[in-house]
Structure formats: C-alpha cells, structure tokens
C-alpha cells in the first residue's frame, strides 16, 4: 500500500510540474489557442503548401514557445545564492562573490532556451541580410538592366507602405510600430523582420506571420485588384522582347547599385549591400562554390533559424491581442495598396509609351519574387493565351526588392533614432 501511495504521489508530482497542467492554470488557455493556431499554420504549410519553406518553421517555433514550461525562449539569468545554500559543485563552478553587504554569495548562472540564442541572429539584424545574400545569388537582374524603367514600378509599389503608416498611426500605434506594420506592404519577409527587429521587436511575431501569410496569398489577393484596375485591351498588350544584357553589364550592376544606394541612404546598406554581394558572386562567375553555398546551404540554414525563432516570438500574451487583428488588417491594406499603385503606374506607363507596356507587370513591383511576376504572367495569359509577360514582370519584381529595401532604409533612418 505504501508503495502504491508513493507511486501515486510521484505521478501527481510529475503532473503538477508538467506543461499539461500549465494549460489549465491562469492564462494557460491562451497557450492552448496559440497551439491551435500553430497547428492550423502547419496545416496551411503542409496541406495547402502556402510558403511551406517559411511557414513550417514559423508555425513550429510558435508551437514550441507556447507549450507551457518548454523554456525554449527563456532568457539566461543569474541567481545570487547564499554560500550556505549553494552546493559544492556550484561553488566550484561559479566561484564566490563578496557583496557590498559583506555576505559571501555564489552567482549561479542559468542558461537561456535554445531558441533564445538562435533569436539573437534576428535581434541583432544578422539573419535578414544573410537571406538577402541568398536572394541576390539566386536573382537575375537582367530584365531590370534591359528595361530600367521597371525601377519606377518597383518604387510605385512601395507607396502602399507609407499610406499604411498613416493608417497605423490613426489607429493609435506608436510611430515605430506603425513603421514596422507598414513595411508588410513591401511583401518582403526578411525586410519586414529586419525593420521590426530594429523598431518594434515585441511585435515581430504578428508582423512576420502577417507578412509571410500575405506573400503566400499573392495569387489570391493580387488578381482581383489587377483585373479591377485594367481594361481587357490593356491586359492583352504583348510587350516587345527585351534586349540581351552582356555579362559585363550584369557584373557592374550590383556594384553601381550598392554605391548609389549606400551613399544616398546608408541605413539601407546592410540589406541592399548583401543583396548585391550575392548577385555579384553569381554574375562574376569566379566564386561559383560560394555562390552555390549562398543559394543553397546558407539560405536553407538561415531560413530554418529565422523561421523558427520568429515563430517563437509569437507568445500568447503578445499574439492574442486586438492589436494583432489590427496588424493583420493593416498588413492586408498595405499589400493591396502596393499592388494597386504598381498597376496604376503601369497604366501610366501604358499611356506614356503609346500602349507598349502591359500595366499588369506593375503589380510585380511588390517584391515577393518570383510569385508576383508569375501572377502577372498568369493574369496576362487569361486575356491573351499567347502572351508571355514573365520576363517583363521580373524587372519590376526585382526592382521591388531594391525598392522595399530602400523604403526600409527610409523608415529606419527616420524612426530608428
């Protein structure tokens, strides 16, 4: 009988210290909801394949951090223990400290959670530029060099960012948080994470989830706006073939862009600089191994760290608020405005070139490479099945990456002080 009592007592003790009980204590129900949201996002990533490369680690990070007592994001701490309370091992490991009160203590250090240490790469702004390095190594700026007018569409699609900033301010967000929410309109996950980590790190979870969700929903969000703002005649424009770009031009491009952007807007230098470094490695052809590593191994490793740790910032107490709903709504507005302004400027180019530019390529200015360009191609082909807009849309698409990095630099320069 005594044995049974001991077993029961130990079971109760284990259950009392388990995370399961944590779900039913205090605000543990919030964690339960977050676990449900994480599972739903995992379903979207696996079942529906919505940006699975990012959504899967984000959702799993969210799941891990909301499991009570998992401690994956615990901050490292130190505890002062009186000498009498400390064990011999602790004394040997941490040594003794004499405090101003004359007492001798042992300063016992408790390590942080695994994801806390990995999260330092986000907090210190290391991962997003590394992702940009990989994107640069994977991008072909040829269509943009062949048709530099595409830069206008890349700039136009960023207008939504600044209008959304006003919306966020009117809804009562502080300037720094408003800037972080607005950058969702750039449709560039790493840029959104970079700006938010610098301006409003507490909002990283909801902003990253909103940014990546909208990037995954590009094929659903953009086409209705594109069709609404264009006529059938405009959508059916067949654009002339782009000129061939020489290797030297492609090599010079990243160098010139880096010099111009970093000189004019130094705060954009980390993002634009790494993007262009990756591209130079690709185009120069002399560092193929490094270029391949940036495109594959580095990109994949950083994606795992970035996704998981960003997901781990979505703790219940931060995520389950009315503000998150507002962020999701504002993010959608920013994205729609960016698409709309891109198409409107595309229409202007259609008018000024005498009908030579198909306005549909304007929507690709919202980064999201190559998904947004693919959407331009798809919507164009609905009207004229023999129309191939993809290469033309890739110009504004990569211009959008540069444009969103520049917009991020503006927000950091103005609000980051």
């Amino acid at each position, binding site marked *: 009988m005594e044995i049974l009592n001991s077993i029961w007592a130990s079971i109760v003790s284990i259950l009392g210290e388990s995370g399961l009980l944590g779900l039913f204590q205090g605000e543990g129900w919030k964690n339960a909801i977050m676990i449900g949201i994480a599972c739903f996002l995992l379903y979207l990533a696996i079942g529906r394949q919505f940006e699975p490369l990012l959504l899967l680690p984000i959702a799993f990070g969210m799941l891990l951090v909301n499991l009570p007592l998992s401690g994956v994001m615990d901050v490292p701490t130190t505890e002062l223990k009186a000498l009498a309370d400390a064990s011999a091992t602790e004394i040997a490991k941490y040594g003794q400290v004499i405090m101003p009160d004359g007492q001798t203590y042992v300063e016992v250090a408790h390590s942080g959670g695994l994801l806390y240490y990995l999260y330092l790469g986000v907090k210190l702004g290391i991962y997003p530029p590394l992702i940009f390095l990989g994107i640069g190594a994977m991008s072909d700026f040829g269509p*943009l*060099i*062949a048709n*530099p*007018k595409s*830069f*206008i569409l*890349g*700039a136009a699609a*960023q*207008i939504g*960012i*600044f*209008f959304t*900033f*006003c919306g966020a*301010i*009117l809804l009562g967000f502080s*300037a720094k948080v408003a*800037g972080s929410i607005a950058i969702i309109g750039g449709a560039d996950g790493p840029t959104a994470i970079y700006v938010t980590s610098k301006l409003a790190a507490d909002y990283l979870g909801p902003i990253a989830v909103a940014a990546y969700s909208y990037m995954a929903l590009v094929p659903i969000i953009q086409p209705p706006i594109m069709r609404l703002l264009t006529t059938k005649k405009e959508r059916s424009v*067949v654009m002339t*073939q782009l*000129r061939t770009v*020489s290797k*030297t*031009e492609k090599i*010079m*491009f990243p160098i*010139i*862009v880096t010099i*111009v*952007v970093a000189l*004019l*807007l130094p705060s954009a230098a980390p993002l634009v600089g790494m993007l262009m470094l990756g591209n130079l490695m690709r185009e120069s052809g002399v560092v193929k191994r490094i270029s391949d590593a940036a495109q594959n191994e580095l990109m994949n490793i950083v994606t795992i760290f970035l996704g998981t740790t960003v997901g781990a910032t979505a703790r219940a107490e931060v995520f389950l608020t009315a503000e998150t709903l507002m962020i999701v709504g504002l993010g959608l507005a920013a994205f729609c405005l960016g698409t709309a302004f891109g198409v409107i400027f595309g229409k202007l180019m259609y008018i000024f070139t005498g009908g030579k530019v198909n306005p549909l390529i304007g929507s690709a200015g919202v980064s999201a490479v*190559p998904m947004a*360009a*693919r959407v331009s*191609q798809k919507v164009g082909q609905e009207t*004229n099945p*023999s*129309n*191939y807009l*993809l*290469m033309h849309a890739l110009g504004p698409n990569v*211009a959008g990456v*540069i*444009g969103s990095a*520049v*917009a991020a630099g*503006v*927000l950091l*320069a*103005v*609000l980051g*002080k």
Partner: protein
Amino acid sequence: MLTSVLPTGLLPVTGTELFKDKGMLMAVITCSGILIVFMILLLLIIIFYAYGGIFRTVTASKDKKLAAKKAAEEAEKAKNAPAPQAVEPAAPADDGTIPGEIIAVIAAAVAAMSDGRKYAVKKVSRSHNQTGGRTRWAALGIYENTRPF
C-alpha cells in the same frame, strides 16, 4: 535625417518632438518617404539608361570592327583559293531564302531523332503563321525558359 530635410525654425528641432504631432508625423514620413524612394530609383533609372547606352555603343562598334575584319579575311581567302571545280548541285531543299546553316541544323535535328533510319530533308519552307507576334521557335524558347517559374 528627418531634421535635415525640414526647414529650421518652421518645425520642431528633433524627431522625438516632431512625433508628438501625429498629423505632421504622417505628412512628413509619407511625403519624404515616397520622395526618397522615387528619387533613388529614378537616379538608378538614369544611371542604367546611360550605362546601357554606353554598352550598346561599345558593343556595336566592336561588332562592326569584327565584321569588317571577317569580311577582309574572307576576301583574302577567296582571292587565294583555287578555282572551284564543277560539282553536280544537290536538289535545293528550299526556295533560297533560308540560310544553309539553318537547313543543316534542321537536317541534324531530324537525324538525331531518327532512331538510326535514314531520312533526307526534301523541303524546308518558312511558316508565316506566328504566335502572338513571335515565331513558333521564339515562343518555344520563351516557354522553355519560363517553365520553371
């Protein structure tokens, strides 16, 4: 940065003070943000138009020189070559408007796909049925290049 773009005396001195006024904050960030983004990207457009122009001029002049050199070499070769012997001409496979290299490529492609059997290209004619302003070959090339996306 923010204070540097604002006229002194007209607005508060520091960004923090400026942020107390929401309307001013929104106006300044929206206008200056859009302006700076457009300014930088317009500058890049100008640079890359000029840059593209320079490259096209340099390439055109190089091509011209190469063509002139090739023509001179061919003229020299023709001058030194022995008189051609009369050979029985093969039956023309086209109406004379398609270059011989193209016919050779088509014949090679047919041979490559022929599973060891022998074929002869008897006729090659131009198709004027184009796809959306492009030839079928151009359309196929674009399709091949864009399929991964």
